[in-house]
């Protein structure tokens, strides 16, 4: 369990990025963080593994203030994949790149190999293990960077914009992999602008604006709230848009819907006449 208590942070002490963020992340949760550019999303996730330390406030992991841990110690429990994969990759094969993270965190050789193969398979990188990461396409490099952290199966995994440059099939694979991890009791946190990805995969959404949390709750509530969408410069989810149009004709269809199942139920009810 991670608790953030009134976390404030300003880059170089000048450029305010977080002004009083408090939240609790339980084991096994799936959380999406949304918000406009510069809202403080990346700054927030960098606080989880100690890359940034709060100017004011505390980050508490299982009851202990994380200021007592180094980033490497926190990395064993809290994985973070950054936006730009090129900042991570430096070895000459995809496999060694993934093994490097595992070895850093103290996995034995056999365990590491097994874990590595499994992760590469799950992310559709099975034929790539001997390839040099530098010869891969942007989207593939992104997946290698993801694999290198995903393989370590941290208790809390945070991903900064993981869906950028990924086609629909890869997104599905990623979603499946995240839900597998989640079923093992790991918490997954994703920073993203991809609202459909959020709706389909993340039950809880945190919306940020100007370094503050403006909404935190069930995804279908948060993302069907026009004020929140406005503050986070997001467009309405397609399903909500559809629900609105239906609402204009059939008032019994609620306006604020984000889930396909709910919409189906409502439409069936309307068509069934009662």
């Amino acid at each position, binding site marked *: 369990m991670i608790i953030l208590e009134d976390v404030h942070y300003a880059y170089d002490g000048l450029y305010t990025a977080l002004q009083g963020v408090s939240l609790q992340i339980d084991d096994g949760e799936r959380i999406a963080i949304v918000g406009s550019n510069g809202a403080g999303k990346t700054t927030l996730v960098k606080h989880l593994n100690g890359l940034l330390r709060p100017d004011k406030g505390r980050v508490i992991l299982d009851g202990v203030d994380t200021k007592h841990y180094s980033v490497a110690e926190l990395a064993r429990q809290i994985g973070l994949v950054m936006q730009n994969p090129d900042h991570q990759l430096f070895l000459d094969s995809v496999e060694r790149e993934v093994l490097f993270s595992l070895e*850093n965190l103290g996995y034995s050789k056999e365990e590491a190999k097994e874990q590595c193969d499994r992760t590469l398979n799950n992310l559709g990188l099975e034929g790539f293990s001997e390839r040099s990461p530098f010869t891969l396409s942007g989207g593939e490099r992104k997946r290698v960077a993801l694999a290198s952290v995903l393989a*370590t199966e941290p208790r809390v995994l945070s991903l900064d914009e993981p869906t950028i440059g990924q086609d629909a099939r890869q997104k599905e694979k990623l979603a499946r992999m995240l839900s597998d991890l989640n079923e093992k009791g790991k918490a997954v946190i994703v920073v993203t602008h991809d609202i459909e990805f959020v709706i389909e995969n993340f039950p809880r959404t945190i919306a940020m604006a100007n370094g503050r949390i403006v909404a935190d709750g069930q995804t279908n509530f948060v993302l069907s709230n026009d004020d929140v969408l406005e503050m986070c410069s997001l467009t309405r989810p397609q399903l909500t848009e559809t629900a609105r149009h239906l609402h204009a004709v059939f008032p019994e269809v609620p306006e604020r819907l984000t889930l396909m199942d709910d919409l189906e139920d409502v439409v069936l009810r309307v068509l069934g006449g009662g």
Partner: protein
Amino acid sequence: MAEISFLEVFQYTRQDSVIHRLDPRAKLFMSIVLAVMSLLFLSIIPLLIILGCLVPIIIAAKSLRRWLRSMKGLSVLLIFIIIFNTLLSTQPNPFSHSIALTLRLIALMTSFSVFFLTVHPDELSQALIQMRVRFEFAFAMSMAMRYVPTLGQEAYAIMDAQKARGVELDKGSLLKRIRNIVPIIVPLIIVSIRRALSIAESMESRGFGSSEKRTYMNVLRFKKSDWIVVLVSLLVLIFVVYVRLYVTLPSWLLWQFGI
């Protein structure tokens, strides 16, 4: 980043001073004359005199504090030079010789820092162009200077990304720390090459090099003060070269530490 703080003195600082307002070409000439002077002498007193001329220029450029900070950053290296030269030199008076060498290094650094501290990269490339350097080369040079800070930021981002994978950058034996540089340096080089290629592509897509003859919005012109600087520098240069070649220096100028 204390180790590289001495480089600060070669980084342009936006300020308004007599020195900043001079034409870059005049400043380049002045810097070269000052550097040549420090290369002509290898005795303590003349080098101190040269430094005595340089420090007021730095003060006039409102950069004394920055200069002092850089010198502090450099001090470790300077002490090394003094110790090793004193121990290993074959000169008759090794200590005085190594002190003179250190003073010369300081004087050389300071003379070029006067130039780099006060010339904006754009001004520099404009100066080069007006000195008949081809535009492409001048542009490449100012681009290189422009990207130094970006590279620094990139290095920090890479360190963060590697730390997040459990690399302990500031722990372990010396050998381990040296090996830890690899995960930083390799991505840094790759990212830079990738960026260079994409900048080149985007520049070409925006029509870089499409017209043979370029015109410039700001053209540098010599003012009266620039001519004075060039003239004084030239006179000093002639005088110093003359003294070096034809005058036997009085003994107090060649003073050394007693053995």
